[in-house]
C-alpha cells in the first residue's frame, strides 16, 4: 500500500509539473480582464453574466479590442457575491470585489454588486483601488450617482449604464400612468411596495406626484417585508376602496403570489409593475399559470423585451436567444451587454488601460447602443435617459398579453397598447 501511495504521489507531482510548464505557452496578446461581481444564484446575477459572456465572445470572435495598435481579447472573470441571499453580510460581496481586483487582476469591473447596499459600499473600495467600474444591474438607487456628483474626485471611477429610479418614476412610470388613465378614464391608485429603500422612496414619490396630477391615491403606501407570501389583506383593501390601478414596486420572487391572488380575488384594478422582478421573466406566464396576464412590468432598458429601439436591439435580442435558448430575462441584461461594448469603445479611443484616461474616454462616449444613444452625464456618470432612442437610453414597459411580453411604453418603440382585464369593464 505504502509503495503504491508513493508511486501515485510521484506521478501526480510529475503531472503537476507538466501542467504548470504547459500553461504559459499561450502566445496571444495579454487579455484585458473584466471582473464581474454578481449574485450568480439570482436572476439579476445570472442574466447579467450571460449577457456579458455573450458580448465578450462576440468581441473576441471579431478579433478583440484594439489597444494602442495591439489587438487584445477580453477575458471574463465572474464571481459569486451572494449579496442577494438572506443572512449573508455585504462584506462577503466586498471581499469578492477585492478578490477580482487583487487576485484575478481585473482591469475593469462590470456588472454588480447587485444589492444596492453592496453596490454603494463597493464605491469606496473601487475608489481605493482606482478601478473603473460600470454598474449594469441591480442597484437603481439615485444615491449612487448623487454620491459621484457630490464627491467627484473620489468616486469618478464609478459609472452606471442602467437606469435609475428617479427617471424611471418621472420619465416613464408617471407618463405611462397618466396615459392609461386618460385612455380608460382611471384615476384611483393603490400602491404596494417592498420594504427596501428604493421601494419605499419610489412608492412615496409616485404617490406624491400622482396626487399633484389630480389622481386619487387611496390609502397610504402599503409596505411589505421581503419574503411576504400573503397579499390578500392589501388586495381586499384595494378592492374595497375602489382602486383602479395597483402600482407594484417589488423585486422579490414572491410577487408572483400577489398576481395569483389578484386574479383569484378578481380585483378590478390594473396591476402596474414599476419594479416587479417576478413578472419580468419569460417564465412568469408558467409561474402564475397565466394568471398574471395584463400585468405591466418595467424592464428598465430596451432590449430586455422585443422591440426596435435601434437596429442593434433585435440583433442583441436574437443573439442572446440563440446563445442561451431563452429570451433576455431580467432588467440587467441588455445593459450588461451594452456595458462591454461601451467599454471596448472607450478603451479603443483612449488607446490605453489607464484608469484616469478611460474615465475621460467614457465621459466622452456617444454611440448607438442596444437601447438608444449611449451617453454619460459627465458630472455624475449616469447614462443619459430619454424617451426617444435617438436622444438617449430608453426604457421599456411591457404588458403580458397572451403568452407574450408586449412593449407598450415609451410610444417611440411601443408594439401594442395597454389592455384592461375583462373583469374591469
Amino acid at each position, binding site marked *: 500500500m505504502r509503495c503504491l501511495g508513493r508511486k501515485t504521489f510521484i506521478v501526480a507531482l510529475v503531472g503537476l509539473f507538466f501542467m504548470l510548464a504547459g500553461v504559459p505557452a499561450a502566445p496571444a496578446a495579454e487579455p484585458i480582464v473584466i471582473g464581474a461581481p454578481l449574485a450568480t*444564484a*439570482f*436572476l439579476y446575477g445570472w442574466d447579467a453574466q450571460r449577457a456579458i459572456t455573450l458580448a465578450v465572445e462576440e468581441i473576441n470572435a471579431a478579433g478583440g479590442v484594439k489597444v494602442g495598435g495591439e489587438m487584445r481579447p477580453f477575458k471574463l472573470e465572474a464571481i459569486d457575491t451572494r449579496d442577494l*441571499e*438572506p*443572512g449573508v453580510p455585504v462584506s462577503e460581496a466586498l471581499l469578492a470585489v477585492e478578490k477580482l481586483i487583487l487576485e484575478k487582476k481585473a482591469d475593469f469591473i462590470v456588472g454588480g454588486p447587485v444589492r444596492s447596499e453592496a453596490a454603494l459600499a463597493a464605491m469606496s473600495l473601487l475608489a481605493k483601488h482606482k478601478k473603473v467600474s460600470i454598474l449594469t444591474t441591480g442597484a437603481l438607487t439615485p444615491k449612487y450617482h448623487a454620491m459621484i456628483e457630490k464627491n467627484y474626485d473620489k468616486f469618478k471611477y464609478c459609472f452606471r449604464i442602467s437606469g435609475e429610479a428617479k427617471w424611471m418614476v418621472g420619465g416613464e412610470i408617471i407618463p405611462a400612468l397618466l396615459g392609461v388613465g386618460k385612455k380608460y378614464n382611471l384615476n384611483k391608485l393603490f400602491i404596494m411596495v417592498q*420594504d427596501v429603500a428604493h421601494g419605499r422612496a419610489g412608492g412615496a414619490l409616485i404617490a406624491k406626484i400622482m396626487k399633484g396630477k389630480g389622481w386619487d391615491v387611496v390609502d*397610504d403606501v*402599503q*409596505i*411589505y*417585508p421581503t*419574503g*411576504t*407570501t*400573503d397579499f*390578500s*389583506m*392589501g388586495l*381586499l383593501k384595494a*378592492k374595497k376602496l375602489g382602486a383602479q390601478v395597483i402600482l407594484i414596486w417589488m423585486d422579490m*420572487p*414572491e*410577487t*408572483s*403570489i400577489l398576481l*395569483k*391572488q389578484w386574479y*383569484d*380575488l*378578481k380585483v378590478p384594478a390594473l396591476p402596474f409593475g414599476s419594479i416587479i*422582478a*417576478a413578472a419580468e*421573466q419569460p*417564465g*412568469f406566464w*408558467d*409561474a*402564475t*399559470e397565466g394568471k398574471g396576464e395584463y400585468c405591466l412590468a418595467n424592464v428598465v432598458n430596451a432590449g430586455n423585451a422585443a422591440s426596435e429601439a435601434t437596429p442593434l436591439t433585435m440583433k442583441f435580442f436574437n443573439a442572446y436567444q440563440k446563445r442561451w435558448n431563452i429570451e433576455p430575462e431580467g432588467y440587467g441584461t441588455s445593459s450588461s451587454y451594452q456595458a462591454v461594448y461601451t467599454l471596448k469603445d472607450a478603451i479603443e479611443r483612449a488607446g490605453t488601460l489607464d484608469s484616469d484616461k478611460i474615465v475621460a474616454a467614457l465621459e466622452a462616449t456617444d454611440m448607438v447602443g442596444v437601447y438608444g444613444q449611449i451617453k454619460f452625464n459627465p458630472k455624475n456618470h449616469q447614462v443619459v435617459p430619454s424617451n426617444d432612442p435617438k436622444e438617449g437610453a430608453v426604457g421599456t414597459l411591457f404588458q403580458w398579453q397572451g403568452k407574450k411580453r408586449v412593449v407598450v411604453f415609451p410610444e417611440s418603440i411601443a408594439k401594442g397598447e395597454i389592455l384592461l382585464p375583462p373583469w374591469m369593464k
Partner: protein
Amino acid sequence: MDILIYGVVNSASLALMALGFTLVYGVSRLPNFAHGALYVLAGFGAWLGMNRLGLPLIPALILAVAATAGIGALMYRFILIRIRGMAISEIIASYAIGLAILEGLRWGGLKGGTFVLPPFAEGSLEIAGVVVDYQRLLLIGLSAALVAGLYLFISRTRVGLALKGMAQDERAAMTLGIDSDGMAVVSMALGAGFAAAAALILLPLGNIVVESGYNVLIMAVAVCIVGGLGSWTGAVLAAFLIGFAQILTVVHLGAHYQVVVALSAIIVTLIVRPSGIFGKQKELEERV
C-alpha cells in the same frame, strides 16, 4: 369580516408550518432546525415528480410526502441519533443539514421564481362580502383535518400511545419496553411528513423558492415557542394568536412590522415565560 377570515387562513397556515416541528420536539426533545429545508425539499420533490417523471398530481404529492418522511427518518437514524440529548449540538447539526439541503437544491439549478405547484381547486367564492379562493378554504379544512388526525393517531393507536409515552417520560416508557430510538425515528418521519404536507398545501398559493425555507423555520420556531415547546394544543393556539396579531398589524400598523411582531413575540415569551403559554412550567430547567 375580512380580518376574521384571512386571520383564520393565516393562522391555519402557521399551524401547518409548526405542527411537524412541535411533534418532533414533543416526542424526542429534538429541535429539528432542518424543518424549513424539508418543507422546501417536499415542494421541489412534488414539482420534479410532476414535471420530470410526468406523474399526475395526487401520486406526485404522495410520493413527495413519503420521500420527505423517509429522508427525515434517515437523517435521524444515521446522523442525529449520535448527538441525541445535546441540545446545542442538535440545533447546530440539524441546521447544518438543512443548510446543506437548501443550498444543494439551489446549486442543483432549482432557483428563481418559476417553480409552481398547481392548486387542488381553482376559483373562489364570496363569504359575507369577502372573496376567498377554494385553495384557502381547503387549507383551513385540511389543516383542521391534519390536527384532528394527529390527535386521533396519538390517542388511539398503539404507536401513537407509545409516542405519547415517550413525550411524557422517556425513561418510564423505556422500562415499559418502548423502543426509544425507534419511536424517535417514527416521530422524525412523521414530523418530516407533516412538513411535506404543509408544503404541498401552502405552496400552490405561491411559488417554490429556496428562501422560504428560512422563513418557514422562523415562523415554526416562533409558533412553537409562544405555544410552549412540545405542546401541540399550545402550538395550535399560538398559531392563532400570532396569525391574528400579524393580520391586525398589517391592517393597523403596516405590513413591514409583520416579522417584527413574530420576533418580538418570541423574545417576550422567552423572557417572561420560557415554556410558553401552554407548556408545563419547569422553572428550574429553564431559568435561575
